[in-house]
């Protein structure tokens, strides 16, 4: 009882923090866009630094991996089209709007270019490029495999002994996921879902942390990535849902018959809202964090735009202090969001596999409140 109460408090705190961060990010996002437009115009005339463009460039995907201005790691572009088949070439060929092999990158999308040099929007191209995000994804996968194969070896090596090294560092986190997330949320059937929850937690955590590094990709702040994670959770919940779960949706207990025409659609919407909220929460939180940090750093350049070098140097210490502070917050958010995503996934699975019929009301309510986050 005490544990579930603590979990709820944690969750509530997490939701409040995430909604605050989200709200801030929205403001900053709008500012950023406004500045982007404004600065875009300014750039055309005076060649000033475009903060909004910089921010968008950083949080969006790209064909090459730009670590710093001008230092770009070219990545493979992989295209498939019905008429030309599979094509692979380096992203450096498309840099700065260049046309290569009849392709041109426009607004970060690769389009076919016809003989006259005009972009052909009709041609259907399937783009499987190893973009910056995909490269970061592969990097995180490699890190996870290396780390956890080492941890796994540690368990084989230290059989019957105390854990050591990396193993002892990660064991509390693994135990946390098992004992604080999986066990209380899912119940006795947790073992079946534990591998997914562990993978999910560490995948999100590692990518959140990787995203905080300078010049890194914004993978967990990408809607495609969170979409995939949310859809997998949705599929697991849907396919492991038992009789009680479906019955609860079709005929909620304790609800007067007159309310059923309202409640059943609400419940059905809830089934889809849960993964949707998971998807948007992670995406918004991580992207927001990146936007805030970049906006703060952008203030230096905006000061330069408006007041010259002296102003920008003068405000730098203040901006750096806030950036440092927000980086620490983001560090917290990195863990928090991994925890929330995993905990909510575990709760949704728990509500789907629970045998006890009356007990899933609490989780149902949590599900509804979580959509507010």
């Amino acid at each position, binding site marked *: 009882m005490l544990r579930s109460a603590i979990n709820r408090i944690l969750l509530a705190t997490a939701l409040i923090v995430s909604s605050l961060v989200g709200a801030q990010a929205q403001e900053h996002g709008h500012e950023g866009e406004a500045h982007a437009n404004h600065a875009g115009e300014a750039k055309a005339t005076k060649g000033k630094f475009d903060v909004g463009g910089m921010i968008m460039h950083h949080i969006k995907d790209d064909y090459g991996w730009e670590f710093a201005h001008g230092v770009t790691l070219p990545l493979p572009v992989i295209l498939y089209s019905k008429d030309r088949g599979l094509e692979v070439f380096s992203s450096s060929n498309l840099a700065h709007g260049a046309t290569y092999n009849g392709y041109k990158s426009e607004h970060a999308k690769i389009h076919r270019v016809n003989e006259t040099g005009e972009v052909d929007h009709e041609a259907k191209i399937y783009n499987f490029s190893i973009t910056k995000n995909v490269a970061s994804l592969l990097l995180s996968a490699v890190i996870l495999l290396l780390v956890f194969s080492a941890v796994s070896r540690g*368990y*084989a090596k230290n059989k019957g002994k105390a854990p050591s090294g990396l193993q002892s560092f990660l064991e509390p986190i*693994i135990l946390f996921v098992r004992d604080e997330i999986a066990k209380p949320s899912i119940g006795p059937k947790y073992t079946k879902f534990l591998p997914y929850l562990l993978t999910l937690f560490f995948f999100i955590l590692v990518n959140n942390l990787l995203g905080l590094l300078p010049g890194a990709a914004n993978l967990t702040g990408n809607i495609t990535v969170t979409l*995939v994670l949310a859809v997998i959770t949705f599929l697991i919940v849907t396919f492991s849902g038992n009789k009680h779960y479906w019955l609860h949706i079709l005929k909620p207990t304790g609800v007067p018959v007159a309310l059923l025409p309202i409640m059943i659609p609400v419940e059905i919407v809830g089934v889809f809202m849960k993964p949707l909220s998971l998807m948007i929460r992670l995406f918004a939180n991580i992207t927001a964090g990146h936007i805030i940090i970049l906006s703060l750093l952008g203030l230096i350049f905006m000061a330069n735009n408006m007041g010259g070098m002296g102003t920008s140097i003068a405000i730098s210490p203040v901006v750096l202090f806030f950036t440092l502070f927000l980086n620490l917050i983001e560090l917290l958010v990195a863990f928090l969001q991994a925890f929330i995503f995993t905990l909510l996934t575990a709760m949704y699975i728990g509500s789907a596999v629970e045998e006890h019929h009356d007990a899933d009301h609490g989780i149902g309510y949590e599900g509804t409140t979580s959509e507010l986050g």
Partner: protein
Amino acid sequence: MDLLTPDLGLLFWQVVVFLGLFLILRAFAWKPITESLNERENNIQSALDLAEKTRLEMTALKADNEKLLAQARSEREAILRGAKETADKMLAETREKASAEGQRILEQARESMQNERVALVAQMKKEVVTLSLDIAEKVLRKELSDKASQEKLVTDLVSNSRLN
């Protein structure tokens, strides 16, 4: 690659990489790790159980020991009591025997003393008789030198003698 529109390429790679990662980690990391953790927890639990069992056994053993000790103590007391009784009895018996023996010896001594006395008296009587006879004889010899005195003496003797 807009902020809010999912991208086909990334979707493809994310599905492939995440599922691959999940399958590999499940087989080569999560399974051995969770198994080892469970095994270790079971070991710890069984060790704790064993300790608890041993503790209970120790308590039982201690109780047994105490019982044995109490038994030994009571036995010792019983033995001591028995020994004391025996000793007392023996002492009493000895004392009784000794006093009886003393009594007997005393009796014997008294008896022998009596005998001695009787013998002594007899002897003395005999001696006295002999002596008296001797004296009498001598006196008589001297006295009875004449006839008259002889007759007087006999008369005296006859009158004075009592048959003892």
